[in-house]
């Protein structure tokens, strides 16, 4: 019963917050903005409680299975966004981020199931470190994706001479590009650590390298790493800042999604 109430409040909070952020975008009404942030904070508090309860009951961090990982990912995005909003005092990103958080939470609720015990293979001190840094990388790449997407949108409006309402509410290209660079760099760093710990752990856990090298998820993650590395290198050497970097951020995130969801469906090593 308490479970339903808690998840109900989380969903209602994210839903209300999404609605308020969308309403806030065109006119920047202060009152609507306060509702947006307030509801987001309420939802986040309940969400944190829900994740803690689940972790305590299952005895492991909430990373196992699509329900837990998706819900944790939504929570991570929301908390990073809240930090950015309070830090930069700008709510325009929220119009694009918070609906994604809502979507993530909805998807996680579709796949909800009772707590799984941690498979013996993953019962290792490496597990928490490897998975935590991987999630941080994904969260950073999500913001790289959002800023890239908004860059492409703003670019479209400027090129097409359609400088109306949306143009005036979106952040400046220079700002988006800078945020994109930061998000991509942080994501790349965490992904690199995630891969390194994964390799280390795998060489500990398996006698030969074949079981995990053949894993499609490993392949997808490697591809992701190559794309983001390429974006960062091209920025500095070929002057690919701006639009091209933004497009690469979109491609990179598509690869993240494939690695995260797609590859998860046909792997037996990475069960999340």
């Amino acid at each position, binding site marked *: 019963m308490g479970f339903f109430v808690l998840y109900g409040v989380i969903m209602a909070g994210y839903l209300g917050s999404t609605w308020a952020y969308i309403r806030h975008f*065109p*006119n*920047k*009404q*202060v009152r609507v903005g306060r509702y947006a942030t307030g509801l987001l904070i309420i939802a986040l508090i309940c969400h944190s409680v829900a994740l803690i309860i689940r972790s305590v009951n299952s005895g492991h961090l909430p990373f196992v299975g699509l329900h837990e990982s998706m819900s944790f990912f939504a929570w991570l995005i929301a908390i990073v966004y809240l930090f950015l909003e309070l830090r930069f005092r700008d709510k325009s990103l929220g119009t694009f981020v918070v609906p994604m958080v809502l979507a993530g939470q909805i998807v996680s609720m579709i796949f909800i199931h009772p707590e799984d015990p941690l498979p013996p293979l993953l019962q290792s001190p490496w597990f928490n470190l490897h998975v935590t840094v991987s999630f941080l990388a994904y969260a950073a790449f999500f913001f790289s994706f959002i800023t890239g997407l908004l860059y492409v949108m*703003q670019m479209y409006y*400027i090129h097409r*001479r*359609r*400088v*109306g*309402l949306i*143009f*005036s509410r*979106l952040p*400046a*290209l*220079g*700002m988006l590009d*800078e945020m994109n660079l930061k998000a991509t760099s942080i994501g790349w760093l965490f992904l690199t650590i995630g891969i390194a710990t994964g390799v280390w752990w795998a060489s500990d856990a398996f006698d030969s390298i074949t079981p995990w090298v053949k894993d499609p998820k490993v392949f997808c993650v490697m591809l992701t790493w190559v794309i983001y590395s390429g974006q960062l290198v091209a920025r500095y050497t*070929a*002057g*690919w*800042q*701006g*639009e*091209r970097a933004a497009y690469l951020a979109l491609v990179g995130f598509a690869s993240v999604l494939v690695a995260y969801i797609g590859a998860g469906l046909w792997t037996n090593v990475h069960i999340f």
Partner: protein
Amino acid sequence: MHLTLIGLSHHTAPIDIRDQVALTETLQEQALALVKSSGKILETVLLSTCNRSEVYAATNDEVHDPLPIEEWFHEIHGLSPGTLSPYLYRRTNEEVIRHLFRVVSSLESMVIGETQILGQVKDAYLRSLGVQTTGVVLNRLFEKALGVGKQVRETTEIGVGAVSVSYVSVELAKKIFKDLKQHSAMLIGAGETGELTAQYLVDQGIKRLIVANRTYDRAAEVARRFDGIAVSLDDGLQMIADVDIVISSTGAPHCILDRDHMMEIMRIRRNKPIFLIDIAVPRDIDPQVRNIYNAFLYDIDDLQSVVDDNADRRQKEAQKVEVIVEAEVNQFLNWYQSLAVTPTITQLRQHADTIRVGEIERALSQLTHLSESDQKTVDMMSRAIINKLLHNPSTRLKASTNSDQGHHHLHALRHLFGLDEKDEE
């Protein structure tokens, strides 16, 4: 109680007249002090901007007489009476409320949707509040007006999108670069629009402005005004790679910046974004430049089409604003009209009489043994009680209308006897 407005604006007076009546802040405060000491006008707010000079006044005369206000208006500008009369508009009561609400909503402004006026009205009101020339009526009117102005800007798109070529350029620059303070600009050639754009960029705190001109002396003259650096046209063209914004408005008959030159510049800049504003006719910059990566080129037609779009949108939004203004005027009128003294006293007496008649009928129905003359006496007594009870409140309320306390008394009376609640029923 009368609300009066006297004023002139760009709608009624030419610029040289408006220049004469634009008062500095000190002069405005002196003018308000003057009106306060004269005691002729109960409440006053003076609104003085470069396009508008208005007096909002509340008076307590039985008959509406704008003459003292008009005289004072001339006096504070040091003009002999009647000089400004042909340019003045005069409004009373409901029209004053509507006018002020339209002014704060920028519907009366030269450029519809401009945002300055709201701040100007606020300053004017606070100044009058500071020297205590406002009271119940104007306080409520101006606070309501500021609320209307805010609501209009928050709920409509009246202020979205710049409506001049130079301001559109600056808006674009602000959406291309994160912080203009970290970028520098170059103005090539001279001309009003180009210089105005440069001025706006300087106002935004641009890091550095370079002015290039075919004749160096002309460049030096313009550069001095903006605290910029003057260079010759050839030097300027060599330096484009170092700046992030270029405003070009030369009288050259052909392009001064072609595609190959721009490709070379972008190579040197390592594709750092550059914003090129070409306001020259014929064009200074080869239109093909717009296909180069990270080169943002806007020519005069592009800018003009943005201006037109924005002006159209503001015009459409103005209709929504009119609806808001009208609703707010009606709401304010409800309160304002309740301020009249005579209707209030009539209402109070009716209220008392209704109670009296009800109670007398009830009592007499039980006192059937009374003779007709006794019944009359009882009835007379009830009338006398009411008359004596209401005598002082009525006469004192009438007497106080000419004092500062008048509105407070009126308000208190209406509240204590629940006269407004009765209205709503």
